[in-house]
């Protein structure tokens, strides 16, 4: 029904090429629905192409198939970065991949969000989910900064906060390659100047961002995603914290260098007029 109105041809073709075992109802064993995917990504596609004009670098590093962990930086404000990375995995990876985000716990408590996220494979970030999906050769998208990351204010933009270690232990125990990425532009799209903490507690969200123009609505600023080649680590996940933290730090440093590369690209692109004015990165 709804799908007929919004369906985007490119999205539909990409969803058809996904390596997901849909049954006669177009459902996979996790309840991911073909129709919901088409609707969901058809709504994101205009934002991806026209609003944020996302440019992707290094899409060839995204593995064609098999278990994969996409690990990146979280921008402050709303998780625009998550939505755009998922869209890029579908539209700019060949063959297309369905990224499955590990979502903050509060989202599943909200009506409609709970319904939609469960139909498009965006599950609560539980180790049980991650492990099962990886063993099923799926592609996970993880922001190891978690809500600490989206809770960044504009003044702290592109500064990585503490990374969790859970993702690395899982990657080691499931023998999963890690593809680090950097998302650039998200911090400028929603510059967060303060958080409403009391209201956030009332709706059980980790924070509610407030921008200089009050509403936490992302601005139409061009964004870029930089994917790095996959990193693989030896181990079985039972290593001591020192060892695991060392591996985490390698991933973190790779993301930092991608961020530097991305911000340099952005400054050059502004100088050359490839991306529009009003998108200055003043640091």
């Amino acid at each position, binding site marked *: 029904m709804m799908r007929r109105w919004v369906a985007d041809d490119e999205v539909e073709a990409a969803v058809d090429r996904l390596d997901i075992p849909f049954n*006669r109802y177009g459902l996979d064993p996790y309840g991911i629905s073909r129709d919901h995917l088409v609707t969901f990504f058809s709504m994101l596609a205009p934002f991806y192409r026209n609003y944020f004009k996302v440019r992707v670098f290094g899409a060839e590093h995204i593995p064609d198939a098999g278990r994969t962990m996409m690990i990146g930086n979280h921008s402050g404000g709303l998780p625009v970065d998550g939505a755009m990375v998922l869209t890029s995995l579908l539209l700019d990876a060949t063959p297309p991949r369905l990224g499955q985000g590990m979502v903050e716990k509060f989202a*599943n408590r909200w*009506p409609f969000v*709970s319904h939609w996220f469960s*139909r498009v494979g965006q599950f609560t970030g*539980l180790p049980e989910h991650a492990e099962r999906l990886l063993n099923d050769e799926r592609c996970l998208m993880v922001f190891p900064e978690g809500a600490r990351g989206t809770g960044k204010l504009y003044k702290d933009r592109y500064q990585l906060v503490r990374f969790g270690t859970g993702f690395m232990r899982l990657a080691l125990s499931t023998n999963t390659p890690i593809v680090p990425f950097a998302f650039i532009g998200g911090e400028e799209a929603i510059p967060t100047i303060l958080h409403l903490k009391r209201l956030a507690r009332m709706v059980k969200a980790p924070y509610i961002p407030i921008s200089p123009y009050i509403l936490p609505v992302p601005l139409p600023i061009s964004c870029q995603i930089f994917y790095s080649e996959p990193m693989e680590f030896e181990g079985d996940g039972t290593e001591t914290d020192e060892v695991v933290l060392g591996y985490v730090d390698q991933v973190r440093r790779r993301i930092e260098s991608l961020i530097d590369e991305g911000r340099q690209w952005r400054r050059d692109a502004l100088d050359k007029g490839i991306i529009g004015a009003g998108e200055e990165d003043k640091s």
Partner: protein
Amino acid sequence: MKVLITGISSRLGRMVALELLDGDHQVLGIDRRHWPDAPSGIEMVRADIRKRPAEDVFRKSRPDAVIHLATVTHLSRRTEDRQRINLVGTRTIIEHCATYGVGQAVFVGRHTYYGADAESPLYHTEAEPPMAVTTYPELADLVAADLFAGSALWRVPELDTVVLRMAYLLGPSRAGTLAAYLGGQRVPTVLGFDPLFQFIHEKDAARAIVLALSKRLRGVFNVTGPPPVPLSLLIKATGRKNLPVLEPFFNGFTGRFGLPSLPPGAVNHVKYPVVVDGAAFREATGFEPDFDEIQTMEAFAAVDDRWR
């Protein structure tokens, strides 16, 4: 093999009994309720499992195996009575098995013991604790009975005990929790939520119980049928109408306007999925369901149409 079924007059009990008779087993049954057209091969004793006549069945017939189905699962039943039957009944069965040299015991529970919650994972394995005690307090006695039954594994090591946690039963008999929820024309759901529901055809369930017995399983196992489907699809495929209700009004609506009555704790089970992993059971027994999700939903819907 001589098999005693407690709670034999339940829908599932009858199906298990017939399945056992087909496999040339000798079947005994204990139940407080009648089974008027029971096949002549079945030896029935009308008794309460906690009372002396029930113990006499163990003493005289010396069954090789017991399938314990005599649990009260209707949540509308008075709580104390239910707790006594479910917990004391389980204890009595374990004790009789130990005293009278029974070789195998099968306890049948439900997959909902894992609990439905925003933070609970899809595909619960047997390694996870049953969280329903917190998410659905009305189930507490059944959860306790399930855990207590599992303790027979170390308390009576010579008894091969298996605890089965079954997905919702669905099928032509229209018996069980899910059938009651889908019983009316309109099925109340919580607006903005569409959890996965996992069910198994009642005939597959009966077959799985007999299989657990013949494979002499020990341990705790989830038993699943076809893959889960979203509640909205389940409602549609069974010919019902989805009635989404705003969550604050949900408990006020149920039990009225021809809608099924649900205990307050049930709301979580209508918002969030309980999906279990049945891989260990399938691996141990080679079980494969005969009925897929469409056949199971249609089996339920077809009978109901005749009744209307």
